[in-house]
């Protein structure tokens, strides 16, 4: 049940991001190019959705250059 909920949530999130990125693509590259890019954007939207749904804590900071400590 949890897996099904998770998959549905991922799909829903990915669909939303796909529409958002297609709109940006149409604005930036034109509607025809946006449609050509649809399969690649769809793949990226799934990754973006996974990133969006992954649970992080407030103290989790971003990494840009990983060796910052040292």
């Amino acid at each position: 049940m949890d897996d099904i909920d998770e998959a549905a949530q991922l799909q829903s999130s990915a669909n939303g991001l796909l529409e958002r990125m297609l709109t940006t693509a149409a604005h930036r590259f034109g509607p025809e190019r946006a449609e050509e890019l649809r399969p690649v954007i769809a793949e990226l939207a799934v990754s973006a959705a996974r990133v969006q749904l992954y649970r992080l804590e407030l103290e989790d900071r971003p990494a840009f250059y990983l060796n910052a400590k040292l």
Partner: protein
Amino acid sequence: MTGCEAAAAIRQTSVSPLELIDSLLERIDALDCEIGAFCFVDRENARRQAIQLGNEAARGIVRGPLHGVPFVAKDLFYTRGIPTEAGSKVLKGHTSSFDATAVARLNQAGAILLGKTHTTEFAILDPAPTRNPWNYEHTPGGSSSGSAAAVAAHMAPLALATQTGGSTLRPAAFCGVVGFKPSFGRVSLHGVLPLTWCMDHVGFIARDVADVAVALQVTAGFDPADPASANVDVPDFRSLIPMAKPPIFGRVRHAFFDDADPEVLMALGEATTRLSRSGASIRDVRLPESFTAIHAAQHVAGDVETAEVHSGLYALYSELYRPKAREAIEVGFLVPAELYLRAQRIRQQFRSDMNEMLEPFDALILPTANAPAPKHLVSVGDWKFQSPWSSAGLPSISIPCGLSSARLPLAIQLVGGAFSEPSLLAAAAWCESVLGRLPPPPLSASP
């Protein structure tokens, strides 16, 4: 002859650098029209330097541990006076005025640049015109396609490569040679055309572990010209090889890796059995929860940075990019900013989780790639088994472990904690001594 063997022979003056260079040039002339590893052979300069270094060796002068040893560099490394085109029409005729730090440091150690090797366009996905020396119908992998093929075909003992996802280890595995990617920041990226800023690494390809250890030895160390360069000690990596006692490995148990080709899993099983019989301790480990999001995080962060890296050139020359590079750049512009930042937070968490998980081990052990080199030249294989460690900036190394039923190389991958190169290289050398090396690929010209 490996790089270390050649260096020893040159020091003893039993071989001259010029003899070595000429034999490699002869081999390149015989083979590279079929293999297509080189985009530029620096014939005259290499011979000129070889004469100079040979004269010095005859007088007992040795500049460094690679005195007189030839190397090649992927065509993303700046090389003074020699074109650096990144496999792209966008940079056709581009020549830099300085050497990348890695190239300069190899030169300072006495190594001789023999030429530049093909890459996929800008290290993205449009393939290089290179074939796998083991079977010309198969991809050599990428993006460091030419570097791996040149070393595998004995056209050079050592190659500079790069890795953002799996671009050093995967081609090395597909071509039956050793591929090594140090920790993020260990080797300067100054003068290397970027694919991303946050996940690019310099890598090395050679025919044994000792050669990649020497290459690391002479190129590692802080470089103020690279803002990502790590200011950490550079131990004597070579003196730690071979390992005094058998290593302790964590064998990755994760459903993700069960998707590998059955031959790959069988080869891993056989390799771990042999290592275990020789004294290695192998304990099953499960990857942290953050692993489930790391490929997605790399995809998102990587595409955004690639888009920004290319924003200037793309604005001027978009029509000159090949299809996959153009797509990757264009979609990178579309990612919402907050998701780029979340991806970077996931990367940091995964790195932290992995460093903690790796503490009791010398290295993780897993297959380098999910399958042997695919039979086509239109893609460069799957990067998913190599990319998590690139994303986390952890050192990783691929060593050959056998041949598939189609006589294509198979390999195991070892992954260490951040800046654990001494123990990782020692463990890899120990594995190599147990598993042995592959024979050379079945090519017509002899080394």
